[in-house]
């Protein structure tokens, strides 16, 4: 059984409604026994028993790549929370939520979890949720790089303030969001049926399921940004594929915001779901042997790396590895 503490990152541009959403979550049954780590106290304010504040602190690691910078504040806070949870019997603390600042890039948080052996042994990334304001969201996405990155890195996007008079229509918002994150789950927080507790609690299950929408190419509104789906062979050779992907992320991880895929591989009967953020891949999720998968795929969200180059490279590499795979 996986007894690691689930971690949800709530991100979103300035004033998008992150804290309000978090308040709803903390009031839900699923939100009980949740520790919240914030980098700034927002206007909405959180009155919560397990609220921690940490000064945002980035440590650049070797290579000085920003997306792999270690969030020392978060590492220290998580270490302390896990230690406390274990000392106290471990039964009470069930979930950890990090609310980022509006201008923060979630990638270093993901890297902090994924690259530290102790951390990835005690904490698992449950979900990255981006909150997008229905009134100003589209303009912010066009004008600022931060919200684009936040959405690109998210597996779930929650639209806030859709009940306001100036809110953009949901189809327009969805089209804009899908152009950045084609496989993300998109929710309207003002829909009567929207349940933030269930949405966060089921995030991993939903993320590892096949996408609910047919992912097609979306025209990006911003030059250099691209999201695309590559159809994969019936079964891929795992040693060859991992070699290729690790080399690709080594060389271009700063330009590959997210990669996700559902594949059949040489190593196992059931499909596997893979996902990674920039240079960091998470351990694959294995589906049961009988799970249907008609069209294995990889989804890339990139900023500055073209689809054609990735597709050509992958096809060539897998073809060259085929004789060994026999």
């Amino acid at each position, binding site marked *: 059984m996986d007894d690691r503490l689930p971690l949800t990152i709530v991100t979103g541009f300035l004033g998008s409604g992150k804290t309000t959403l978090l308040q709803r979550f903390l009031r839900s049954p699923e939100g009980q026994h949740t520790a919240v780590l914030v980098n700034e106290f927002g206007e909405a304010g959180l009155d919560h028993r397990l609220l921690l504040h940490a000064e945002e602190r980035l440590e650049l690691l070797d290579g000085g790549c920003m997306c792999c910078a270690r969030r020392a504040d978060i590492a220290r806070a998580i270490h302390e929370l896990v230690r406390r949870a274990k000392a106290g019997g471990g039964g009470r603390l069930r979930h950890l939520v990090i609310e980022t600042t509006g201008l923060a890039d979630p990638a270093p948080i993901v890297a902090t979890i994924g690259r530290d052996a102790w951390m990835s042994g005690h904490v698992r990334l449950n979900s990255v949720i981006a909150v997008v304001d229905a009134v100003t969201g589209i303009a912010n996405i066009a004008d600022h790089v931060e919200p684009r990155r936040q959405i690109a890195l998210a597996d779930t996007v929650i639209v806030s303030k859709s009940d306001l008079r100036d809110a953009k229509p949901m189809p327009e918002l969805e089209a804009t969001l899908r152009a950045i994150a084609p496989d993300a789950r998109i929710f309207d927080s003002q829909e009567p049926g929207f349940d933030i507790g269930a949405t966060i609690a089921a995030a991993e299950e939903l993320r590892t399921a096949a996408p609910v929408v047919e992912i097609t190419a979306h025209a990006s509104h911003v030059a250099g940004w691209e999201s695309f789906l590559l159809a994969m062979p019936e079964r891929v050779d795992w*040693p060859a594929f*991992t070699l290729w992907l*690790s*080399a690709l992320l*080594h060389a271009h991880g700063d330009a590959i915001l997210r990669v996700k895929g559902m594949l059949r591989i040489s190593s196992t009967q059931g499909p596997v779901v*893979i996902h990674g953020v920039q240079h960091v891949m998470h351990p694959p999720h294995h589906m049961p042997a009988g799970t249907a998968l008609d069209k294995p795929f990889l989804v890339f969200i990139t900023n500055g790396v073209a689809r054609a*180059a990735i597709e050509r490279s992958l096809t*060539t590499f897998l073809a060259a590895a085929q004789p*060994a795979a026999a």
Partner: protein
Amino acid sequence: MCEVCAIFGAGEHWSDFGRIRNERYPFEDIMHYRAERKRRIAMVNALIAPHGLACEDWDGEALAISDKRGRFKIAHTLNDLWPRIEELAHARVDPLVPAFLEVRRDG
């Protein structure tokens, strides 16, 4: 290494999780894991041999990269492999260029 059965060769890198179903340690089929590891090393060698480098398994725990002058570097995971190869080959690893490993002009 598995602390219980003292079997070497069960890594913690994401690529080491090809075989298992969601447990964190892939001991159910260690032989399959080792066979795939061996094939992966053969593929690495095919890529780096033109640059005078060789890759060997280091007790199933890490990868050892050496050049013809006997210089030697250890890579614990695939994440470390590419930087170590770049250091020894004075080349840049880039799967998007046809050569995969491109000699650095400044090297």
